[in-house]
């Protein structure tokens, strides 16, 4: 087992890292996984247009290969993890091996959880500069393996879906090239060994997101949305850069013979070992939190995510629901040691991360109620669910957060692809003016959408229920009612989560009603999409039903013990690079209450849409989307709230109208002044001086001196030629005379000199 030697002022401490360089072939060679889509990207760029299917076959082939590789890696990891559960663990630990920083060390305590699950780390030197070695590598553990599976599966399904969805598009090949590049970058991100590699792939996925949001850049709105996403992400990326730098130099203070370490395992181990000062960790965690807020759409940097729906729907499903936006959540999970210590998550009842997550989840859910655009409903829902994950991490429910990430990827991708299927046939995203009554016309899409909605709302036994319930239990706020405290008593977060659960159920009911029930309000004759769209929908829908069973709660009486907490067992690291978190046990009472809350949410929305609006529609003879003379027209307060939501809390106004203007206008003024008064004047002066020098040069030097020389030499040669031509008489004998005369003179000279 590899240990880390850290030097404090007084002593040298060795910290178990919980990593190994040994492992199954698949665990050792995980670097192949991002490489294959990267090659496919290059292949599509160069040969895509010449291939019969425009390069999509290359992308799909690459994804099939990496999907299979990921599954093999997953099984290899489960095997690897189980080996360390058994008896032979002690031997394999004592035999030990040399680490980069470490030495042969006795395996120390592995924490209260028992055996460490050794992450398989392989690195190679990227470059060396100034005595610091920068490496790239792979860190394969349960988290990475889980992410590999999610990313490759969703990406593969999205590839297949896209062959139908963007068929005939002008930039079809370009689209698939970027999907490949995105897959490569995202896979690189999830197996990053160090924070620098994480940063690079983080930027790469941002770039792909930018390019794909702006896929139809001919429309100004789309390119604006792409720019907004890119620029908003830049704000957070600064945080990531600063945070990574802080952690690098902070680790350098403790490690002998080096400036610092980018290694994730080392950073986490140092953070967990309480050698790093708390203030450093807090600042680093806050900086990294900014990155999470922008990438994972946390309030108040979430505004780019709804606008990002301007991109093609498969992109929204892949990038803006299932994978890229969870990069922030993944980053927290990866550097959990830093966050756990930095925000003092254990034993507390409130912290910045939990607060941001809890607030985001509520804010996003509220906004989802006032959207007309089906994709924007889902986008705000994604923000809300990402808030759920961040909140879960904020309260220390690491496994629950990752499990929610896992299940959410399936059901949200299912919903997004379902909305794309609907939009594909009605040629619009507007639920109020162009949808309604699609239940009969698109039965496959309808069924999968319903499954995804129920999973999102969190009704048992669908996937969303299990993960959401674990998060609620993980808040530890249920302690008074028979559950146990986890890392603290985050009662406030529990309340936030409960309210959001009800809201989620209600807005999804609204969305389903507006899309699939009532009378069709659009034009044309919508019909079911083809198999390349419905098959991915069904695969995701099946996962949305069953994925929840992977992590049945511990102590769940209806399932054998061997099936409980399988996900947590394999995914959650128990090692030196992971903080010692404590786990809350789920309680029946909480599960029942949360289910009731969800049912209440559905019932209220059902009562409004399926009963009242339906009745009003029948009476008025046209398909309505809301009650005439509803609450917002009767109550001033409700109207104000509605206006606030429609305007998205005025955040866009705040950013562009106030902050950007407040920053931009003085800068623009100053820049204008500087430009006019200083730069232009300087340039003018330089220009005028140049003109004067030029004129002087022209008149005095060029015209007189240079031209004089040239003219004189011309005249000279003309004159001399005139004279010399007389010698050339054309008569042989005169030439001979000159020859002899010259010979005579030379002979005379010879005699005189010699």
């Amino acid at each position, binding site marked *: 087992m590899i240990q880390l030697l850290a030097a404090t002022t007084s002593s040298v401490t060795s910290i178990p890292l919980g990593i190994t360089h040994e492992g199954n072939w698949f665990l050792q060679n995980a670097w192949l996984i991002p490489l294959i889509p990267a090659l496919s990207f290059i292949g599509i760029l160069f040969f895509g247009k010449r291939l019969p299917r425009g390069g999509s076959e290359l992308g799909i082939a690459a994804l099939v290969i990496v999907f299979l590789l990921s599954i093999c890696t997953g099984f290899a990891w489960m095997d690897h993890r189980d080996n360390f559960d058994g008896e032979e663990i002690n031997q394999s630990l004592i035999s030990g091996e040399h680490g980069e920083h470490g030495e042969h060390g006795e395996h120390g305590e592995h924490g209260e959880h028992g055996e460490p699950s050794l992450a398989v780390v392989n690195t190679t030197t990227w470059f060396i500069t100034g005595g610091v070695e920068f490496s790239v590598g792979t860190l394969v553990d349960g988290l990475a393996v889980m992410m590999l599976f999610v990313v490759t599966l969703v990406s593969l399904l999205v590839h297949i879906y896209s062959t139908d969805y963007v068929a005939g598009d002008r930039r079809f090949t370009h689209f698939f090239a970027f999907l490949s590049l995105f897959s490569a970058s995202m896979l690189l991100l999830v197996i990053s060994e160090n924070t620098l590699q994480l940063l690079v792939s983080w930027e790469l996925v941002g770039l792909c997101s930018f390019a794909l949001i702006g896929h139809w850049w001919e429309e100004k709105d789309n390119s604006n949305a792409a720019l907004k996403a890119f620029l908003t992400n830049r704000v957070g990326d600064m945080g990531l850069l600063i945070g990574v730098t802080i952690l690098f130099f902070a680790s350098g203070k403790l490690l002998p013979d080096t400036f610092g370490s980018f290694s994730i395992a080392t950073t986490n181990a140092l953070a967990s070992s309480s050698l790093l000062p708390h203030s450093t960790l807090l600042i680093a965690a806050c900086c990294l939190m900014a990155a999470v807020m922008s990438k994972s759409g946390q309030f108040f940097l979430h505004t780019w995510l709804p606008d990002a729906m301007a991109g093609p729907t498969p992109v929204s499903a892949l990038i803006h629901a299932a994978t890229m936006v969870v990069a922030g959540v993944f980053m927290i999970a990866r550097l959990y040691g830093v966050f756990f210590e930095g925000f003092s998550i254990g034993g507390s009842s409130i912290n910045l991360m939990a607060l941001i997550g809890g607030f985001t989840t509520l804010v996003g859910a509220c906004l989802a109620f006032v959207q007309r655009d089906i994709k924007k409903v889902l986008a705000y829902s994604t923000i809300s669910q990402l808030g759920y994950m961040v909140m879960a991490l904020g309260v220390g429910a690491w496994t629950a957060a990752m499990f929610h990430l896992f299940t959410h990827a399936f059901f949200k991708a299912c919903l997004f692809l379902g909305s794309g299927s609907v939009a594909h046939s009605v040629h619009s995203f507007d639920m109020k003016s162009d949808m309604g009554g699609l239940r009969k016309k698109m039965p496959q899409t309808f069924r999968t959408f319903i499954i995804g909605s129920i999973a999102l709302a969190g009704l048992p036994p669908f996937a969303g229920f299990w993960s959401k319930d674990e998060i609620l239990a993980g808040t530890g706020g249920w302690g008074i009612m028979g559950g146990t405290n986890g890392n603290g008593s985050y009662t406030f977060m529990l309340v936030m989560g409960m309210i959001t659960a009800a809201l989620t159920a209600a807005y999804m009911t609204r969305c389903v009603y507006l899309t699939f029930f009532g009378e069709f309000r659009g034009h044309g004759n919508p019909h079911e999409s083809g198999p390349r769209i419905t098959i991915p929908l069904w695969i995701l829908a099946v996962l949305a039903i069953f994925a929840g069973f992977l992590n049945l709660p511990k102590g769940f009486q209806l399932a054998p013990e061997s099936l409980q907490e399988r996900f947590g067992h394999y995914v959650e690291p128990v090692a030196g690079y992971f903080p010692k978190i404590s786990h809350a046990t789920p309680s029946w009472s909480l599960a029942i209450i949360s289910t009731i809350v969800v049912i209440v949410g559905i019932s209220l929305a059902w009562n409004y849409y399926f009963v009242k609006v339906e009745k009003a529609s029948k009476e008025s003879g046209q398909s309505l989307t809301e009650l005439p003379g509803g609450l917002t027209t009767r109550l001033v307060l409700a109207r104000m709230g509605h206006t606030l939501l429609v305007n998205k809390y005025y955040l866009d106004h705040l950013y562009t109208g106030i902050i950007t203007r407040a920053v931009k206008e003085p800068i623009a003024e100053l820049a204008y002044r500087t430009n006019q008064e200083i730069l232009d004047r300087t340039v003018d002066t330089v220009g005028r001086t140049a003109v004067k020098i030029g004129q002087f040069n022209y008149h005095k030097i060029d015209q007189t001196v240079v031209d004089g020389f040239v003219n004189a030499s011309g005249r000279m040669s003309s004159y001399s030629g005139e004279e*010399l*031509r*007389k*010698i*050339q*008489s*054309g*008569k*042989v*004998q005169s030439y*001979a*005379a000159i020859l*002899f005369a010259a010979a005579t003179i030379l002979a005379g000279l010879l005699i005189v000199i010699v």
Partner: protein
Amino acid sequence: MLLNQFLILSAVLFSIGVYGVLTRRNGVMVLMSIELILNSVNINLVAFAAFREAIPGEVFALFVIAVAAAEVGVGLAMVLLLYRNRRNIDLAGIDSMKG
């Protein structure tokens, strides 16, 4: 051995040759004068070779004779062509290269 006589003969021949080259208008006469110049050189070479008892001078003279034969062959051919084109061989009339 008296070298002077040979040198004087050669100088006289050379001067006659030069005079002929510069003054005669007949092309054939100019060629003959050139032959005189060359032969004066030959006399010089042979005289010095005999005087210094060195073979190379005589060998060189033989070369000069051979080259002179070739030269006079080309020269006479040119004179013949001149005659064909102009019906005379007066060198004074050939000044089409006048600058």
